[in-house]
C-alpha cells in the first residue's frame, strides 16, 4: 500500500467535514438496539449498506472472531454489530460496533488496538486513523472501521461512515482515573494502553508465568525507545504488598530475570533477556514498573519524582 501521507492529509481535512455534517445534529438513537447505531439511507454520504448486519453477543463473539475474542472478553464484552458499506466506485468499508461492559472497557480496547502510529481525528471520545482503518471509542462503545486499501476514497469512506455512528452514540467519556498516574512529561503521544488483565499486559510486556499480576486495572505509557512505565492497581496497599511478594519471588527464582543492583536503598532492579532493566516501586495500592535499556532511566521512571 502506498500514499499514506496523501490520504492522511485528506483524512484530517475531512474530519472537519464529518463533524460539521448535517447528521451530527441528528437524533440520538436508543441504544437498546445496536442496529440503531448503523448509518442508513444517505447518512454516510455516498456509502450505503452492503448486505445485512451480523450480531453476536457474549460468548458468541468466538463465532465471529474465532481465536481473537479472548482479549475482548478480558476487558468486558457485551455484543457487537457488523455491517459492510460500499460506494458507487465499488469500494468497501466494514463497520464493527462493539458494546463493551463499561466505558473503561471500551477505552481499554481502543488503546489496545491502536499502534501508536495513527493520526488523531476528532471523532468520539478519542479516535485514531491508521493506514487503512479507524478506531474510536465513546461511552461503552468501541467502533472499528476497516477499509481494504489505503486510497483516499477508502479513507473518505471510513470517516463518512464513522461520523453518523459517533452522532448516534449519546454522551462522551473520560479515560479511567489511573491513566492520570502516567506523568505527562515525556509521555509519547498515542502510547497509552489500559489493561484489565494479563492478556493485555502480556501483549506489551510479558512477565512470562509470573504470579502477583492479578491487578484490578493497569496502564502503560512509553517514555522513549523501549522505555515504559507500567502502573498496576491492586485495590489496596495490602493487596499490592502481597502481589509484590509473589512477583518478586518469581523474578528472583527465574532464569529469565537477573537481580541487578538492589543495594544502596534503590528500588529492586532486574534485567530481562533483552537486557532491559525493570525497576519496581510501591505507591499505595499501586505497583510501579519502569522498563528501560538504561537502568538509571528505569529507576527514574518509578522514582520519587514520579
Amino acid at each position, binding site marked *: 500500500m502506498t500514499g499514506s501521507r496523501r490520504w492522511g492529509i485528506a483524512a484530517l481535512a475531512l474530519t472537519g467535514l464529518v463533524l460539521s455534517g448535517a447528521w451530527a445534529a441528528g437524533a440520538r438513537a436508543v441504544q437498546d438496539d445496536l442496529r440503531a447505531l448503523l448509518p442508513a439511507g444517505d447518512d454516510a454520504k455516498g456509502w450505503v449498506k452492503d448486505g445485512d448486519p451480523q450480531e453476536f453477543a457474549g460468548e458468541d463473539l468466538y463465532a465471529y*472472531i474465532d481465536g481473537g475474542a479472548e482479549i475482548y472478553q478480558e476487558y468486558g464484552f457485551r455484543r457487537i454489530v457488523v455491517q459492510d458499506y460500499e460506494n458507487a466506485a465499488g469500494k468497501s468499508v466494514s463497520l464493527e460496533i462493539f458494546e463493551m461492559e463499561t466505558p473503561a472497557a471500551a477505552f481499554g480496547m481502543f488503546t489496545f488496538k491502536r499502534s501508536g502510529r495513527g493520526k488523531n481525528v476528532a471523532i468520539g471520545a478519542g479516535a485514531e486513523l491508521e493506514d487503512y482503518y479507524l478506531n474510536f471509542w465513546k461511552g461503552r462503545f468501541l467502533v472499528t472501521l476497516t477499509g481494504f486499501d489505503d486510497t483516499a476514497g477508502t479513507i473518505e469512506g471510513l470517516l463518512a461512515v464513522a461520523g453518523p455512528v459517533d452522532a448516534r452514540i449519546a454522551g462522551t467519556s473520560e479515560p479511567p482515573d489511573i491513566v492520570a498516574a502516567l506523568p505527562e512529561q515525556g509521555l509519547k503521544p498515542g502510547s497509552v494502553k489500559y489493561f484489565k488483565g494479563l492478556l493485555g499486559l502480556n501483549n506489551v510486556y510479558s512477565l512470562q508465568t509470573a504470579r502477583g499480576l492479578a491487578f484490578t486495572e493497569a496502564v502503560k505509557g512509553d517514555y522513549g525507545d523501549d522505555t515504559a512505565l507500567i502502573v498496576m492497581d491492586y485495590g489496596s496497599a495490602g493487596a499490592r504488598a502481597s502481589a509484590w511478594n509473589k512477583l518478586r519471588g518469581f523474578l528472583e527464582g527465574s532464569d529469565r530475570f537477573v537481580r541487578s543492583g538492589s543495594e544502596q536503598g534503590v528500588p529492586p532492579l532486574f534485567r530481562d533477556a533483552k537486557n532491559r532493566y525493570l525497576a519496581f516501586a510501591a505507591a499505595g495500592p499501586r505497583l510501579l514498573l519502569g522498563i528501560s535499556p538504561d537502568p538509571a532511566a528505569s529507576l527514574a521512571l518509578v522514582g520519587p519524582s514520579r
Partner: protein
Amino acid sequence: MSRTIGRRDFIKTGAGAGLTLVMGKALMAAAPGAAAKAKAPLVGVGVGEDYGQAAVKAVELAGGIKKFVRKGAKVALLPNVQSRHPGSFTKPEILRAVIRLCKKAGAADVDCLSWQTVKQWEDTGLKAVIESEGASLRIFEKDEGLFKPVPIPAGVALKEARILAALYEHDVFINMPITKDHAGNKFTGTMKNLMGLNSPANNRTFHRPNWKTDPNDITHLDQSIVDLNKAVKPALNIVDATEFIVTNGPFGPGQLFRPQRVVAGTDRVAIDAYCASLWALRPADIFQIKLGGEQGLGEIDPNRVLLKEENI
C-alpha cells in the same frame, strides 16, 4: 480417485516413499529431544514482491514439491481464512501458486478443508482462486460427528484431539498459515494454524476458566497447541510472511509489517522461530515455540537449522 486412509496406513514416511503425511502414531512415537539428534532441518525462504513466485521459490529451497507430493496424491491444504482484514489471512496468490505446484507434481486432487464459513473464503478471495485453479473447497459443519478422535498419549494438556475426519481421506497435508500477531499468545504460525482442523468444541478446551488471571491457564493454551501438533504433522508447511499484522491479531485490523517472505519446510518449530524473529520476537519468549522445541516437535536453535533464503 479417493480413498480412506486407515490408521495402519499412517506411517508412510520411509526413505524413498515420498509420501510424508504423518499422523497420530508416527509423531507420537517421536521421543522428546529427537529433533536435536536429527540432521539440521531445512527451511526455505523465498523473498520478493511477487508472492506467488516467492512461494514457488520457498518450496523449491525446501526440497521441491515432488519431495512432498507424489503423482496421484490427494492433497489437503489448510490456508488461514480467519479474517478478511489485510494481513490476517493467507494471500490468494500464495494459495494459487501452491495449488499449481501440487498439480504440476501430479496431484490427483487438491482440496482446501475448513469448518469456517463460505463467506470467509469468499471475502478473502481464496474461494475464487480455488475455483479458478480447479481445486476444491470442502466446507464442513461444526458437527462433532465430522471430527475424528485422535488420542495424544504424549499430550500434556490435551489428551485427545478431534480432527476433521476428511483430512484422513488425503495422502498429503500441507499447512498454509499466515504468521501474525495474536492477542492470546502473541504469535501465530504453523502450530497455531492446526486449530483450523481441530473441532471448535475441542479448541474451546484450550482456554481454561481462569485464563484471564492465571498465568498457568494462559500457558495452557500454548501447551494445548503443542499437544495438538503431536496429533497431526503436516507433510509441508508453507507460511505467508509477506504482509502481516503485528498488532491486533489474529483478527485485525492492525499494523502491517511487510517482510515479503514465504517460508517453507517441515520443522514447525524452526519455521515459527524464524517467522517470530522477523518481527523481533524472541522465539524462547513465545510459549508455543519454546514448548514445541522442548517437547520434540522441532528445532528452536537457529544455529541448528539449515536456512536457505533467496530473492526472486
